[in-house]
């Protein structure tokens, strides 16, 4: 909520909250003298500050949540020492990271080594520009918002390449190569999921995509048609890979590559990578929320209509409601990411490529083609106003049937069945060892 208020303050430039900045001593003078330069600069400064603050606070909370989630899944207590229930643990860790010595390896390419993490962080940071948080809470409602998002996400690749190559460390190089292979490949299924959504919404603007999903929650694109329902899962899996979360965390697979491309990094630079990772988690989750889960729309028709119609102070309240709505959705997806991470083993590089090129890619194409076809055929009005509800029921019903199928079959490994003793002849095909000589 604190971050929400900060963000609300950040969008003061849109005339929502009437702050008289011109009355401030130094800033006021500058604003009066050079209004065309100073105003954008001021807005930029405020925006940067707000986004950085948001990323930091989100990361602190997300790290704490991740630790607690993992702990509870593993029958542990998790951090308990610093603060009540260990709440300040991540803050303490952050302070420790900042206070740590900044080491640059002697044989590293210093320039690239230094700007690598900045690139990575910038890529993620820019993504926040187009994320809508409420009817008016958006830094820039670009008409190519989704394209912008896909574009800035690939800046990360450059940053990682710089960092990994400049570290002059073999493990870092391994991690970099894995990371780049993975990021570049997984942009395709992600892009296709975007296109599938754009084909239906008819717009690349994040705000317009959100507005298209107003009303009851069966209006969300997730339930728009059964193919987009699958598309959501495809996007979610691909976004796991995009943010290098388990089971796709092999760029920094700690049991294989020590720490991957940021092996050599310490202190502040490491924490930039760290923040970028958690911020990226938030970005992809919020994007998923916007594309499939109605963004800042609440899923209740009357609230949504109130949010759009309100004015004045109620408008501010509406923005806060929208912010809460999207935050809850994004947090839920982040929690699922954590849940997956603490359950699954890591997959191998060739399997990562297999999943991308042979599973996600054909499926994404299928989703794109068939969901468009579905839209064309049904024309959105097959059963009048109740059509969205029917589609919702179709999606949920299909999902339910699949789940029932999963639950109905016997468990994958029945320990009793695997324990039938072997016959002697089955076992004793003792080969000739000595024949090797």
């Amino acid at each position, binding site marked *: 909520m604190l971050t929400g208020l900060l963000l609300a303050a950040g969008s003061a430039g849109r005339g929502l909250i009437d702050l008289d900045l011109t009355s401030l001593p130094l800033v006021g003078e500058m604003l009066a003298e050079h209004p065309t330069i100073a105003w954008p600069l001021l807005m930029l400064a405020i925006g940067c500050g707000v986004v950085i603050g948001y990323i930091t606070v989100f990361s602190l909370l997300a790290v704490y949540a991740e630790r607690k*989630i993992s*702990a509870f899944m593993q029958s542990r207590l998790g951090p308990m020492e610093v603060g009540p229930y260990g709440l300040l643990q991540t803050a303490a860790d952050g302070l420790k990271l900042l206070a740590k010595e900044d080491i640059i390896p002697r044989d590293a390419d210093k320039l690239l080594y230094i700007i690598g993490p900045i690139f990575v962080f910038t890529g993620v940071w820019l993504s926040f520009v187009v994320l809508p948080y409420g009817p008016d809470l958006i830094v820039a409602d670009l008409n190519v918002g989704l394209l912008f998002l896909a574009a800035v996400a690939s800046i990360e690749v450059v940053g990682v390449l710089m960092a990994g190559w400049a570290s002059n460390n073999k493990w870092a190089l391994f991690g970099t190569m894995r990371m780049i292979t993975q990021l570049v490949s997984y942009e395709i299924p992600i892009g296709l999921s975007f296109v599938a959504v754009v084909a239906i919404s008819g717009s690349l603007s994040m705000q317009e995509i959100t507005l298209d999903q107003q009303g009851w929650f069966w209006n969300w694109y997730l339930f728009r048609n059964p193919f987009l329902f699958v598309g959501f899962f495809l996007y979610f899996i691909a976004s796991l890979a995009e943010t290098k979360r388990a089971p796709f965390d092999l760029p920094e697979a700690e049991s294989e590559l020590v720490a991957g491309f940021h092996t050599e990094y310490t202190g502040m630079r490491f924490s930039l990578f760290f923040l970028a990772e958690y911020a990226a988690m938030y970005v992809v989750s919020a994007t998923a929320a916007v594309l499939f889960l109605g963004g800042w729309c609440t899923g209740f028709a009357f609230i949504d209509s109130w949010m759009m119609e309100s004015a004045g102070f109620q408008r501010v309240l509406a923005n806060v409601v929208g912010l809460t709505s999207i935050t809850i959705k994004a947090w839920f997806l982040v929690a699922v990411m954590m849940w997956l991470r*603490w359950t699954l083993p890591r997959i191998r590089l060739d399997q990562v490529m297999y999943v991308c090129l042979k599973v996600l890619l054909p499926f994404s194409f299928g989703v794109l083609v068939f969901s468009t076809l579905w839209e064309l055929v049904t024309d959105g009005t097959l059963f009048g106003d109740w059509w969205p509800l029917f589609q919702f029921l179709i999606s949920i019903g299909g999902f339910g049937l699949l789940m029932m199928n999963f639950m109905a079959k016997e468990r994958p490994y029945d320990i009793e069945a695997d324990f039938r003793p072997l016959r002697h002849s089955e076992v004793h095909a003792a080969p000739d060892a000595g024949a090797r000589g």
Partner: protein
Amino acid sequence: MGYFGDIYDVSKSILTGMGVTLKYFVNPKTITTVQYKRPERRGEGELHEVPHLPDMHKGIHYLETEECIMCWQCANICPVDCIVIEGTRDGEVEGAYQGNRANLTRFTIDYSLCIYCNLCCEACPETSTCIHMGKEFDFTSYDQGSLVKNLLTDEKFTKEDLRFTTNAQSKIEELAEEKKRKAAEAQAARKAAAAAKKAAAAKKAASTPDTPAKKD
């Protein structure tokens, strides 16, 4: 199995696994770890109040000083030679700790070496059984030197203690010298007595030289 079968199986097993973790996540009763109460957070009297420490627990040693006979059995059997005993059984030393007919100036265990194998307690002879393993286990420190424990005072071994033991060492050596001297004197006296006896016997024998011959 095929392409779709593979995807189906993998997703199914993933959901099964997620079911297990979710079961643990939602059930707080499954948490098995407990918060360790660090020494500085414990009260004065709670030093040993750590839950579920079995009776058998092998912690840091304690010594029944008045029982110790300074037999060096524990130091002898120790596989890592971490026990040092200094003292004397020859007599009083000022400031020394009174054992069972022994004056102990030093009985330390270096816990940077000790492997808690309990062999010292096993080796302690039945007449004394003075060294035991206690239940305290929290013996952390920031430098290796302060891991040496003085069993005589049950505290960490300090530099002051070292000064005392070095001072006492000369006294112990003196006592040993004295004992040696006394022993030598006693030996000499015994030798003299024996010589005198022998001489007397020889005299006696000389006086009766034919006695053995009589037997033949």
